[in-house]
Structure formats: C-alpha cells, structure tokens
C-alpha cells in the first residue's frame, strides 16, 4: 500500500479498494513473536551494542546543572546550626537549597507523610534520623563543584539517642510505649490451646538480614523547567505516577503540571518504587528555582547510604506438631526493622505475615508483627516485599520439626501442604481458602527429577566419611500470593494506537526494569491483532499517556498491564470487525484475524490494508484500555478475606558443601521447577526464575549489611557489599518451567506472575546450609544459623553445634 496516496487528501488521490489489494497477503501459519513464544527482550540488541539509553545517557540540555545531595553524618541528632554561606559562595554553584526553599509540602513519602525531602531547620522537627539522610542540595555546573561546595557547609549536631539494631529498637519502643506502626495480628482458630495440646513443640528464632537492591543503574532524575511553571521529569522509577504526584505536591502545583517519563531502568527490584520521588523532587526543585535543567544522579555509595533496603526481620516461631511432623498449630512473632520512617513498611510487614505459612496448612495460627523504628535508612520494597522473610521463618521451623521427629524434612513438608485442587480447601491464617494449590504435584515431580531420595543417601554417606567437608541437601516449596494487598492498587491502563500503515504504538502504565514486561505486553497486543511482534512499537512510560498508574511491583506488571493493553487492542479490533462486517456484508463472526491478515468471509486482506480502509472510513484507530483485578477483597481490620487473586508455586532442591574449618561453602547443584501458568514468554520467564534464584541466594548468603555502632553503613559499595558473581552460580543448575502450569484465575492467557516468586526458591540453599551444619555436629544439635549465612556465620554455627 502506498502511504502517500492514503495521505493525499484530494478525492482523486484516494485509492480504490482494488488498488489497496493489489498485492496478495502472505500466508504465514503463525505470527512472529506472539504469545507463548520465547521472543527476545525488545531491547536485547540495544543492550548488547550499548545503544539502549538510560537516565544518564540522554543528551544533556545546555546549561544543565548537576545536583549533589549533602547527607547527615549522624544517626539521630538535632540540627543546631546549618551554615551554608561558604557553600553558596563556592565556584560553580548556582543554588544551595534547603527545606526552606520548598514551596509546597516537604515530603516525598508514598503514604504516611513522614519522609522529609530535607529536614526542617527550625523547631522540633529540625532533626536528622539516619546517617545519609538528605540535608540540603547543591546545584553547580559540575558534580565535582557541587560536592566540593557541600563540604564547605558547617553543620552542628546535638546528638540524640539512636537505635541502630532491632534490640535497641525494641528497647526504645517499649520505653516509648509505641512502635513505628501499630502491631498487627492474624489469627486462625485458637492457636494457644492447640499449641498447649500438641504432643511436640519446636520453637526458636531466626534473624533474617536486609538486602541492598544493587540495581546496576543508580538512582537518577533529570528535571526540565517548562512554560507555565510546569516540569518535565525523566526519572528512573518503577512508579512514575507517584513521582509525578510527589513532585507536584512539593512544588505546590497540580499533578497536571508535572510529566514523568522513562524508557527503562537499569534494574529496580523494588528499590525504585518509593525512593525515586526524592531525587525527582530535588531535581525539580532546582529546576524551578533556577530555571535551568537539573540532573540529580547518585553515585553508588551515596545511593547505598541514602536509599532504603529490604527489611531485616527477626522471627520467633513456636510450632506444635504430631510425631509424624504434622503441624497442629503455629505461633509467629515478627519484629520488623523499618528504619526511621514508615514508607511502605506496613504493607511489607503484612506481606511477611501473609507468607508466614508458605505452602503449609497451619490449622491454627497466630501471627503477630511489630514494626520497629531504627535510626537507619527507611527500609522499602524489595522483590517479594516482605514475603521472603516470612517464608524463611516457617522453612526454618520445618527443618527443626524434621530434626526433632527424625522424619525426612521433605516428608515433613509434604505432610503439611495445603490440599490440592479438588480436595477440600484449607484456609490461610488470613482466612482465604487455598483453591489453586498445585504444590504437592510440583514437589512430587521435582523430588523425582532431582533424584532427591538417592542424593539424600549419598549426602549421608559422604558426611559419614568426611570430617572437614560436610554436605547438605534441601528441597523447599514456594507459594506466593499475587496481587497488591492494598486492593485499589490492582488497576492498570494502556493506550494503543494503530497507524494507518498498520503499525502499532503501544503504551501502558507499566515500567521496564529488565523484567521483560514490555515485550510480554507487546506479544499480547501482537497476538490480539495477529501481527508480527515487530509491528508493535514499544514506547516510553509517561504519565502524559496513562494516568494514575500503580507501581510496577508485586509481580503484577504483566497481569495488569497485559490485560489493560489487551482490552485496548480488543476495542480497536472490535471496531475493525464492525467496520469490515458492515462494508463487506458479512457477519462479524466471519471477520477473523489470522497471521498478518484478516479473513472477511471468503476474502482475505492484509491487516494493514484493512486498517487503511478503516482510516479512510473515519474509524477511530486509537483506544485506551483499562483493567481492574476482579474478586479480591481483603478486610485489614478483621485480618480476613481474599488479598490475592491467585498463588504462584514453585520448588527448588539445593545441595551444598561446607568447609568446617573456614565456614566457606559452595552451592553444588540446584534443581528448580516453577509454575508460571501458561507462559507468555518462556525465555523471559526462565530469566526471571534464574535471576530471582541467584538474587535470593545472595540475600541469604553473602550480602551482608553492616552498620557500625554510630549507625554508619559500612557496606555501601560493591567492594564491601557482595552480591553473587558468575562463580557463585552452580554449573549444575537445572531450571524447568512446570509444563502443567495453568492459571485457574482468568489472567492474561492464563499466565502467572513471575517477578517475585522465584526469589524464594533460594531458601532451599539456606536450608541446605543448615542441613550441612547439622551434619557437622553429627546431628546432635539443631543449628542456629541466621541469614545471611556468611562463611563466618556458618563456621560459628559449626563450632556451636560441635560444642553441644
């Protein structure tokens, strides 16, 4: 089809239908890159050639200022004096901004209003609450000038008592009679009496450390002042709408005055959900105050000191069970280290509780959670959103029950699984019946494919003959609830344009951080229109196209945005069908979209031709789409209801070897079987599974956050904070997508969310390490091993069991 002819507005230039059809449509059996195909990441080639642009790669506008945020040196102190005269006079400095320069609200928090952009300088609130808290900003011609100027500031602090650890936080809270957030409890049955009545009890404590996101691309935002006092912000964020809202709130302007855009992030993992608002707000403030574009880019150390992390959690468990390992009742006490402010901690601590049961029917349960304030950075969302912490508690308890009963840990686990589909469903501690449980089936398959039983014997034999090296083996399940537990967040919007040449422009509220969301949603749209994936242009996320979006989080990206985009595409497709049916006098059912063509009765056309005709017939070829997850409904007050649309399942079996002289260890082999429903893109899903597993392993092994007694984080760069490297990944890593997977819920093409669940497969590594330590003590004592299980912790645990 000759586009110029279509564009020609004169009647004479208008093509006749016959001309449009001059070339016959091709007859591929299937479109390229449709749903369920392993299409490559849409930016793959751009990634490998360096052409993919991130926040710091866009050409800077002339006059762009570089912003440095000066940070508190104290964990908890009153700001007695802040003298910025010398900083203001330093070379290259265009502006030095404090709380007093903020025209609107001095807050960038997602919910509670307790995250000041900069601390107020007068009155009660003139305090800092963690080392690394932003104090003021310097904007200068170069970043070095901004840093140098910031050093000239004189800050006088008056120290106040600081709580750096969970123990200190508990002491502070008990003294004050108040936690950072109110405690929360879930109850199922009468756990106390059931525990009393149980023949056997296992109780203990496991401390689970935090985790830095270590997205490879640090936090960054650029703000460009526009006319009318508007601001355009480019932000590396999982939550453009929240950045927009926080920037507007800070400037005291309506949301419509702020546009936030991003094409992609260099990793997010939850660390760019609530945190980016700070940097965007600071950049926007500079832009508005100076009238110049401003870039706020954190270097690695500043990023790690200034931004929140996974919540460190202490879990006390007490389980009652029968001789065969059947759980009769459970009691969990969570102490969650939230940091200085509330941020998303309420929902995160809740999710830890929602996963305190993991895949097990607890029968009677009490789960109690305290949310504690420490004078450290405010902890935030991180893949799994508290769920992993909750899960470690019950998995540790499972290992202990196995130890106490002498039953194989896998048998203990299997005995307690939620009933399978078709059986009478059991309810969770939050009273949701589990109706889609496939964990028994998955574990059964993995047990066989990983050769679990034989390897158990082999491990035992090895350990019997080896004093220095000990092996451990563990197979652990994952059941992870999908949906935002804050119900209203479960909505999404999309915008689809079909251009008259048949190419498609796709936009939705989701953000791309590497998880492959964009390609998956594009596959959905390509499938709906039956056009090759290459015909669908993926575009940057912007608040100007899709408003009021939720964060790309809670693994919900493709569930929500995929559905929204599907709805948008379907609207356009319905219009095309109606048009074709009318023009060619065929019933609508006879207008069928096939690979890159449309069958209309006995006739066939290329998709692009039909689109061109529809354009000429003045049919709208653009539509929004919207989706809200059905059926979910959780009553937080009553701690009861259905917070999740469905559950994702998976299981992993890990084998480790430890060196009992040094505590060093290696993961030797891991087998994973994971349920992604019907995969939208098996290649992307495999990537999420492997990546999640390795990231989870890092969390539970080498990634240690270490604060000194002054509250200074000493592991604030990769030199000291150790995420896994290529050699930590076992050569023998066998990952499979569960081929029977199918979502019982009506999700997009019956797929399941995959972003977070695989992270928790790594608990098998932690359990295997526990098993190996136990073997080092000849099975005499159950090891107390906390996470991260660094070589030091492993050695100390070995020493401990050997001394008992």
């Amino acid at each position, binding site marked *: 089809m000759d586009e110029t002819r279509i564009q020609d507005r004169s009647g004479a230039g208008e093509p006749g239908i016959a001309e449009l059809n001059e070339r016959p449509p091709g007859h591929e059996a299937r479109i390229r890159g449709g749903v369920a195909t392993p299409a*490559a*990441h849409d*930016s*793959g*080639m751009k*990634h*490998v*050639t*360096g052409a*993919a642009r*991130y926040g710091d*790669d866009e050409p800077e506008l002339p006059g762009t200022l570089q912003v440095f945020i000066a940070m508190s040196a104290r964990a908890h102190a009153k700001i007695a004096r802040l003298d910025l005269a010398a900083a203001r006079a330093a070379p290259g400095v265009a502006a030095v901004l404090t709380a007093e320069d903020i025209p609107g609200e001095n807050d960038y928090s997602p919910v509670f209003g307790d995250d000041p952009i900069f601390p107020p300088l007068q009155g009660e609130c003139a305090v800092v609450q963690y080392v690394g808290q932003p104090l003021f900003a310097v904007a200068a011609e170069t970043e070095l000038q901004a840093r*140098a100027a910031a050093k000239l500031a004189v800050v006088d602090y008056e120290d106040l008592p600081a709580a750096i650890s969970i123990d200190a936080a508990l002491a502070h809270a008990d003294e004050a009679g108040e936690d950072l957030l109110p405690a929360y409890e879930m109850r199922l049955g009468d756990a106390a009496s059931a525990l009393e009545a149980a023949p056997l009890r296992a109780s203990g404590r496991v401390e689970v450390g935090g985790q830095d996101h*270590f*997205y*490879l*691309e640090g936090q960054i935002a650029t703000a460009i002042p526009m006319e009318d006092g508007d601001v355009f912000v480019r932000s590396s964020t999982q939550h453009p709408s929240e950045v927009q809202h926080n920037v507007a709130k800070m400037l005291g302007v309506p949301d419509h005055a702020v546009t936030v855009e991003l094409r992609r*992030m*260099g*990793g997010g993992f939850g660390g760019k959900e609530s945190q980016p608002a700070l940097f965007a707000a600071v950049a926007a403030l500079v832009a508005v105050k100076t009238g110049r574009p401003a870039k706020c880019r954190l270097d*690695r150390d500043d990023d790690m000191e200034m931004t929140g992390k996974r919540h460190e959690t202490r879990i006390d468990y007490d389980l009652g069970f029968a001789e065969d390992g059947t759980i009769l009742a459970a009691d969990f006490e969570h102490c969650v280290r939230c940091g200085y402010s509330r941020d998303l901690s309420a929902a995160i601590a809740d999710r830890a509780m929602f996963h305190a049961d993991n895949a097990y029917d607890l029968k009677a349960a009490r789960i109690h959670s305290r949310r504690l304030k420490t004078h450290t950075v405010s902890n935030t969302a991180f893949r799994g959103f508290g769920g992993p912490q909750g899960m470690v508690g019950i998995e540790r308890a499972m290992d202990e029950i196995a130890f106490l009963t002498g039953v194989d840990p896998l048998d203990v686990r299997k005995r307690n699984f939620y009933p399978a589909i078709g059986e009478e469903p059991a309810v969770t501690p939050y009273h949701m019946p589990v109706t889609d449980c496939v964990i028994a089936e998955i574990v059964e398959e993995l047990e066989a494919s990983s050769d679990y039983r034989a*390897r158990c014997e082999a491990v035992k*034999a090895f350990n*019997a*003959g*080896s004093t*220095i090296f000990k092996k451990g083996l563990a197979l652990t399940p994952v059941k992870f609830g999908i949906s935002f537990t804050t119900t209203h967040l479960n909505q999404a919007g999309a915008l689809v344009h079909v251009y008259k040449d048949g190419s498609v422009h796709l936009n939705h509220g989701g953000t791309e*951080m*590497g998880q492959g969301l964009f390609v998956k949603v594009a596959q959905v749209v390509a499938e709906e229109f039956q056009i090759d994936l290459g015909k669908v242009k993926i575009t940057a996320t912007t608040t100007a196209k899709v408003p009021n979006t939720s964060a790309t989080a809670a693994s919900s990206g493709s569930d929500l945005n995929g559905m929204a985009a599907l709805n948008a595409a379907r609207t356009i497709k319905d219009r095309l069908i109606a048009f074709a049916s009318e023009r060619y006098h065929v019933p609508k059912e006879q207008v069928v979209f096939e690979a890159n063509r449309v069958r209309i009765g006995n006739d066939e056309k290329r998709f692009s031709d039909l689109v061109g005709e529809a354009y000429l017939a003045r049919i709208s070829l653009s539509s929004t789409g919207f989706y809200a997850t059905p059926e979910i409904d959780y009553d937080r007050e009553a701690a009861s209801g259905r917070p999740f649309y469905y559950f994702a399942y998976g299981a992993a079996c890990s*084998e480790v*070897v430890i060196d009992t*002289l*040094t505590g*060093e260890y*290696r993961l*030797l082999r891991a087998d994973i079987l994971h349920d992604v429903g019907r995969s939208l893109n098996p*290649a*992307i899903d*495999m*990537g999420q599974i492997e*990546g999640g597993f*390795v990231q989870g392993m890092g969390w539970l092994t080498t990634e*240690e956050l*270490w604060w000194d007694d002054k509250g200074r984080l*000493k592991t604030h*760069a*990769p*030199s*000291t904070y*150790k*995420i*896994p*490297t*290529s*050699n*930590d*990944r076992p*050569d023998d890593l066998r990952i499979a997508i569960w081929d029977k997977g199918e979502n019982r819920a009506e999700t997009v093409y019956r797929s399941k969310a995959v972003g977070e669940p695989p992270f928790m497969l790594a608990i098998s590594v932690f359990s295997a390490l526990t098993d190996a330590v136990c073997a080092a003590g000849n099975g005499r004592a159950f090891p107390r091993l906390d996470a991260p299980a660094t070589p*030091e912790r492993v050695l100390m645990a070995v*020493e401990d069991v050997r001394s008992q």
Partner: protein
Amino acid sequence: MTDTATRPAEPAIRPIRFVLNGAEREVAGVSPTTTLLDYLRGPERLTGTKEGCAEGDCGACTVLLCEHDGAGGLTRRSVNACIQFLPAMNGRAIETIEHIGRNGPTPLQTAMVENHASQCGFCTPGFVMQLHAGWLTGALTDRQSVKDAIAGNLCRCTGYGPIIEAGLEIADEPVPDTGAEDAALSARLAQLEGEGVFSYASDGHRWFSPTSVDELADTYAAHPDAVLVAGATDIGLWVTKQYRELPLLIDISHVRDLKVIEEAAGRVYFGAAITHREAREVLAGIHPDLGEMLRRFAGTQIRNAGTLGGNIANGSPIGDLPPCLIALGGRIFLRKGDDLRIVALEDFFIEYGKQDRAMGEFVAAIEVPRLADNQRFFAHKISKRFDSDISAVMAAFCLTFEASGEDVIVAEARLAFGGMAGVPKRAKAAEAKLVGRPFDADAAADAMAAMAEDFSPLTDMRASSEYRLKTAQNLLKRFQLELAGEASGRIAGMGPETLDMAPIGGAS
C-alpha cells in the same frame, strides 16, 4: 627542593594522544585525573560504557585497551574505564562497545541476544566487552574460564547462566587474523606515545609517563613529592571515592623495563609494573595455591591493570600478595636516583600506613624464591564472597623441613598473614612452636594456640576478630592435615563433579 639548575630539562608538555575506536584523538585542557569513563561519557558522548560503581568492582565500564609493546607487537586487555586516568592512555588505543559491533553485531552480541543474556541491560555492555576481550586474547577455553573471565562483572538480573552460555558459544569462534593491522596500529601507537617522558599538565596539575626505568628514576628524583601511579586500581579510587586532589603524578605503567619477568636459578624477578595477570602463570608455577589466589584476586579487569609493585607499595594490611611473598622469603629492590637497595619484604612493612620507603624511592623489582625440595607451601584466601572480594584473612605458610634422626622436623617456619594486623605479618610465636619438631597434629595445635599471642585482629564489615583468628588457626590445621595426607581438596574448586566425589577429609 633540589636545585633546579642541576636538573635535566623538563620534558615539554604535550597533549594526550591516543586512538579511540579507530580514530586519533589529541586531548588537552582536562584535569590529569579525569577518568577514562568520564571522558568517554562526557566529551565523547559514548554512553554505551556505563558507570555502576566507579571503583572497579562491577565491570559495567569495561573497555578494551590496546598497547604497543615497544617491539612492534600489540597487546590487548580489558580494563575498568572508571579508574583509569586519561593521560595514561597516551600512546594507547581504546575500543568501546560502540566500536566492536560497528559492522553489524558480532557473533558474541548475537549469542548474547539469542541466549537472553540481558535483562535490564545496564551491565550488558561491560559483559560484552569483557567476553570480547577474553575471546580475542584466547582466554575463553571452557566453562570455568568463561566464569573466571567475567567474575569481575556484576549482573543483578540474570543470574549469569545465559551470559556464560553466550561466552561458551563464541569460545570456539576463530579469532580473525589481524596481524597486519596490529603491526600498523602498534607502529602508530608508538608514534603517538612519542619519545622520552610524556608530560602533560592542566590547571597546574601535572602528569609524567616515563618509558624507561632511568627516565623514571630521573623524573622521580626531580619530583620526589609526586605520587606514583601504576595500574591505578588503588589510586583511581582516591579520586573517584575520596575526591582527593593529586596535583603531581608519575605514571609507571609505560616503563617497559619494569614490565619484565626474569627467571634465575632458584628465583624469579618480577618488574614492579608486572600486572597480576602477567604474573599469574609464573607464580602458579611456584605453587598452585598462588595461581588459585590470583584467580580469586579481584576480577580480570583489575588483574589486567593492578601491579605487583602497587600491591606491595600501597602498604595495605589486606593485600593478598605480601603475605604470600613474605612466606616465601621474597625481597624487593628499591631504587632512588641511581641508588638501589634490597629489602626483605617482611621488613618493608613497618606499621600501619608506614613502609620502609624514602621520598623519591620506588619499588623496581620483586624477587621471589622458588621452593626448594625440602619446603612445603600453602596459601589460602578467605573472603565473604569467592571472587573479587578483599580478603578477611590471607594466609600463606612455608615450612622448611630437615631430617633429624628418625624424624623429619621443621627447620624453619614462615607463617604470614594478611588481615590479622595493621601490616602483613608473620606469626612469630606460632612459628616458634613449630620449629625443631615434626609437623604433626600436636605441633599444629600448639602453634594454633600461640597465634592468639601473635594477633588480636580487628572486627569490621568483612569479618569479626574471632572469625579471623579462628580461620587463621584452622588454616594451619588444614596445612598439617594436607601434608599428613589426611585432607585434600579445597572448597574453591568444588563444582558438580564433587557430587560424586568420594568422601574427603580425615577419619573421625
């Protein structure tokens, strides 16, 4: 200050001349401590090279560096652009991610896409450059070599599997013969480097790159207050992390006399500017534990830049090489002007932050004795993470045995440690417990107990005092068990084959 009248004439200040992605560059007017990364991303707008940490630890900034060897040849290595200073590029060629696929994607790039080896993609250019360099230099032979090649590159998304697969896929791809082009480039680089000492200045900050050891001696004598920079894997961080001003730098990485390895009877001499990568094979020949230590020392890019001289002269208490060389009885050659003196390495480290090195004196060479037949050696690096992690404890032991009647007894014991004190240090009390008796479990136990007198290590983010002491002790036990044939195998090498391994370790 020395009398300027007697000084040789200062070399003329020149612009920095190098080749970037095939095109010549002449740069002046930027600070000598401008990093290569900032230069690429800034003035050149080559934003494919990323900054992930600015401290050499993530590999996102990896570029390929080519240099002429002074004899018409060309060598290639990957380096971290974030901690290389721009003037050091004088007479060198740099290739970035934008260049390598200029004629369409390379087989590596295609393999990366086909294996789904990128997710967020931010780490990806670094991996591509690193694997590309590995492929060009023949370093990719098997799975382990691919993993080792990329152990200095961090990826937070993929879990590495697909990247390793992509690396393996191209390992067998023939490397195109670029002999003629290389010779031409070598000549061109030699010409760009220029004659004599390269001298650069901007904003009153100065930089010298001598090319011979005599030029170095003269330049340093004329500027004894200068800071020497070799691989810049420490000094780079003084700038990118501590924002230190370094007004006067002398770069020794172009001094070809310091880049030689000479073998002599019973010993090996390493020029101070020999990199860890260049030294690895020879040191592994002295003892495999040294090769293993160097496999895990930093990542490939750092080993391609960091020098033996720098690892010693930085005086770090947690450097990996010094304990090893102290245990072996290594010595260093220090030169100042025309004066040369030899110091036993253990005496070089006086106290934390203080070494036996005078103003204007530099490390010229390192002498490493080979092991005699009656000597046994052991070295092990303990760190939180296996690869690319600064040691919590670095232990290196060398025992000399002699016959005494029926027994074989320890004649000399050298137990050296990093991470246990303010300097790399021998455990003299423990050594005393070993000498004059057979090295059996009792002797080891006595020496282990005595280590508590030798050391009271500190607690920090890498390890606690207790852990350091415990592992230091236990490593001696391991040495004893290994020599007695009661233990074998190190966890570092344990992979899937271990799954079927017969039990190892002593009987209960």
